[in-house]
């Protein structure tokens, strides 16, 4: 065993129980640690992590009132407070607690069960550091969002044939393939693993592939099998719910989320999902309960959001409880003072509540506020909120504002059939479908025309002109996914055909990043990223030959 030496490591201990905190500190001193910071609350942990980058975080799950360990980890990851090679160890009271606590993307590196001694602690730290060092070339690139290079490095490690690392590497390789939409590779990785051994993560992977191939029947069967074998595997529940929802069965999705919540009631994202599904299926009683829980859990969570409050208020409007609705909105104001999205959400519902209460003056006042907020911040608010406002404007007889927002939404979402469908439904509800259908058709035509013109210019070899066409369209429809994707394609093909330059590479990266931000499907973006990475690599690989060191 190596001599314990944590001298160079910056360590944060998060533990509310003074004796335990002292004990862990003592253990670390016996391991030669010198840079130890301690805190007794989750809030304290976050503020320490904002002040300094830690190499090791030892965090108790159970921190009394306030944030728990899981919420600390979620917030740290969300705000990127942890360096990618830091080790986060969650200290729990029970063995086997990990599966229940772990949210999909927010797993600690290790769970350590109380009580433990210094040797155990050091051994876990050591093992994690060795693993992280081994995987550094992959995890560093994942952290940077460069999946193509991460994949390249992962395959390099796989070729070294270390029997102890083969499965962890294959697991990582599968995840990378899934993340980049390379379903074929993902499938062969998981099948290779399953031939050797029936491992739950490989089965889950196959289910996720089926999901992405829109084979919901197979996906559902796969996730159900897994849950049968591993009833505490919450990731399988999350995916099963997603698959039911995609298969247009919100009721089944709701029941799945409910089962998962029964096993792990404090998962806020699942509570939100339950609320949304209950709302959608008109299960108002359950929706009220779920929104309330989400609001409560949100108080200590980075996932706290105004839409939980407005969702709850809307349920109260539906159940004819205007006073509860107003009270909830009051809380919304308090919790999110001066946040435009929160205020807009509140104003929209206030309009409706006052209308219901028969107070036209206050209703108009709230509606004016909503319109004013929309004027100022509308374009930066979530689209579900903009749709809400469309409805309110229709109800208030302000068709021109409705039409303006719809025009904007249609232009930006013309390639999203579900969203376009939602717009049509709302317009139909207000006998305005002639307007929306006409608009949708015109916009589709416009995109097709632009696209054809750009593609035809490109085919004639007029790359610069083709790019101009798309750039022009992009300035008019900055959120349109088809246009940004075509722009990215042309830039990458141009580099491939006509050679690379620093400027072209940079431009390609900017456009691809924007496309990812807009939510262009990863399987459409990934091939371009891979192409770009191999172009960059060719460039890099050639260099040593020209100038050997």
């Amino acid at each position, binding site marked *: 065993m190596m001599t314990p030496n944590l001298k160079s490591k910056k360590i944060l201990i998060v533990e509310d*129980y003074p*004796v*335990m905190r*002292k*004990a862990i500190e*003592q253990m670390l001193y016996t391991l030669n640690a010198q840079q130890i910071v301690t805190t007794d609350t989750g809030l304290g942990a976050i503020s320490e992590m904002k002040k300094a980058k830690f190499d090791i975080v030892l965090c108790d799950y*159970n921190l009394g009132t306030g944030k728990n360990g899981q919420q600390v980890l979620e917030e740290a990851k969300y705000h990127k407070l942890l360096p990618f090679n830091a080790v986060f160890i969650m200290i729990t*009271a*029970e*063995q*086997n607690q*990990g*599966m229940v606590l772990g949210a999909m993307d927010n797993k600690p590196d290790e*769970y350590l*069960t*109380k*009580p*433990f*001694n210094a*040797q*155990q602690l*050091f*051994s876990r730290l050591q*093992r994690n550091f060795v693993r992280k060092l081994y995987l550094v070339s992959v995890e560093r690139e994942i952290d940077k969002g460069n999946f193509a290079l991460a994949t390249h490095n992962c395959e390099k490690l796989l070729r070294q044939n270390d*029997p*102890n690392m083969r*499965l*962890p590497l294959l697991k990582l390789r599968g995840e990378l393939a899934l993340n980049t939409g390379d379903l074929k590779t993902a499938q062969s990785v998981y099948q290779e693993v399953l031939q050797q*051994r*029936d*491992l*739950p*993560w490989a089965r889950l992977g196959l289910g996720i592939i089926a999901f992405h191939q829109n084979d919901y029947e197979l996906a559902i069967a796969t996730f159900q099998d897994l849950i049968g*074998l*591993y*009833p*505490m*595997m919450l990731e399988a529940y999350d995916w099963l719910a997603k698959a039911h929802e995609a298969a247009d069965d919100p009721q089944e999705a709701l029941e799945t989320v409910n089962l998962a919540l029964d*096993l792990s009631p404090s998962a806020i994202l699942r509570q939100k999902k339950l609320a949304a599904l209950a709302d959608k299926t008109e299960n108002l009683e359950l929706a009220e309960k779920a929104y309330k829980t989400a609001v409560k859990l949100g108080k200590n969570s980075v996932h706290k959001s105004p839409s939980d409050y407005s969702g709850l208020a809307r349920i109260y409007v539906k159940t004819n409880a205007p006073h509860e609705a107003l009270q909830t909105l009051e809380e919304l104001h308090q919790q999110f003072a001066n946040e435009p999205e929160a205020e807009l959400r509140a104003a929209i519902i206030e309009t409706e509540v006052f209308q219901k209460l028969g107070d036209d003056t206050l209703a108009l006042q709230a509606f004016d506020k909503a319109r004013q907020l929309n004027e100022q911040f509308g374009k930066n608010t979530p689209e579900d909120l903009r749709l809400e406002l469309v409805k309110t404007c229709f109800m208030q007889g302000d068709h021109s504002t409705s039409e303006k927002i719809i025009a904007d939404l249609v232009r930006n979402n013309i390639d999203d059939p579900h969203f376009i469908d939602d717009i049509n439904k709302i317009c139909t509800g207000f006998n305005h479908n002639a307007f929306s259908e006409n608009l949708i058709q015109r916009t589709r035509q416009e995109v097709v025309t632009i696209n054809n013109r750009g593609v035809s210019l490109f085919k004639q070899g007029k790359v610069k002109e083709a790019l101009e066409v798309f750039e022009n369209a992009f300035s008019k429809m900055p959120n349109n996914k088809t246009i940004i994707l075509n722009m990215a394609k042309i830039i990458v093909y141009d580099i491939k055909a006509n050679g690379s330059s620093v400027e072209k590479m940079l431009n390609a990266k900017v456009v691809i990043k924007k496309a990812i931000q807009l939510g262009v499907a990863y399987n459409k973006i990934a091939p371009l990223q891979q192409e770009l990475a191999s172009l960059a690599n060719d460039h890099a690989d050639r260099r040593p030959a020209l100038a050997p060191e």
Partner: protein
Amino acid sequence: MQETDPQTINFPGILASSVHDMKNSLSTLMTLIARLEKMYPDAKPPEFRQLQFEANRMNNSLVQLLILYKIESSRFSLSIDAHPAQDIIHDIMTQQSALLSLSPVRLLNECPADLMCYCDNALISSAIGTIVNNAHRYCREKILLSAAQKDDHVVFCVEDDGAGYPDQFVSAEAGASIPFEPGTGSTGLGLYFAATLAQMHTNGAQRGFTKIDNNSRFGGARFSLYLP
């Protein structure tokens, strides 16, 4: 505040929070023992060894009771992945390190570096750790903890140089209820837990199992846990 209605008492909740509480107490206790220990020069009083041993025992029993309760109420599943057998052995060794430093007993280990096994590593090391802890009481001077590939199974063995298991233990079927003997300090919980856990590990039609006999290389008791 709600009134406490005995009919709606949430037993799993009480159990879980009590275990959490007891574990905090145990952690405190172990810290205090360690602090006291430092006040003594070497050749520490033998009571320390006893304290450490009993604290381990209490902790193991708490863990096992809680897991068995969860299995019983279907709120449990294994978390299976591939692990180097060496890591599991190492986890058990470090878990025992405080006790070993106070004890004349030597804990030896033997494991091929590239041996992989498929299991819930936290629970398997907890189950085997309990057996090792018990072996401290019955061995004379050494315990061997080993892992090896045997046909389709990876076998973890705990062998000691003591007097061996009593006859009625050895004749009991693997996994069958081990005789409970009040007053002897043996409830059979550790063996029952290990057998239950081993059986939950499957690979196709194969299941894990445990075996006890007196075929230790040192002439004492041998416990074997087979993982498929």
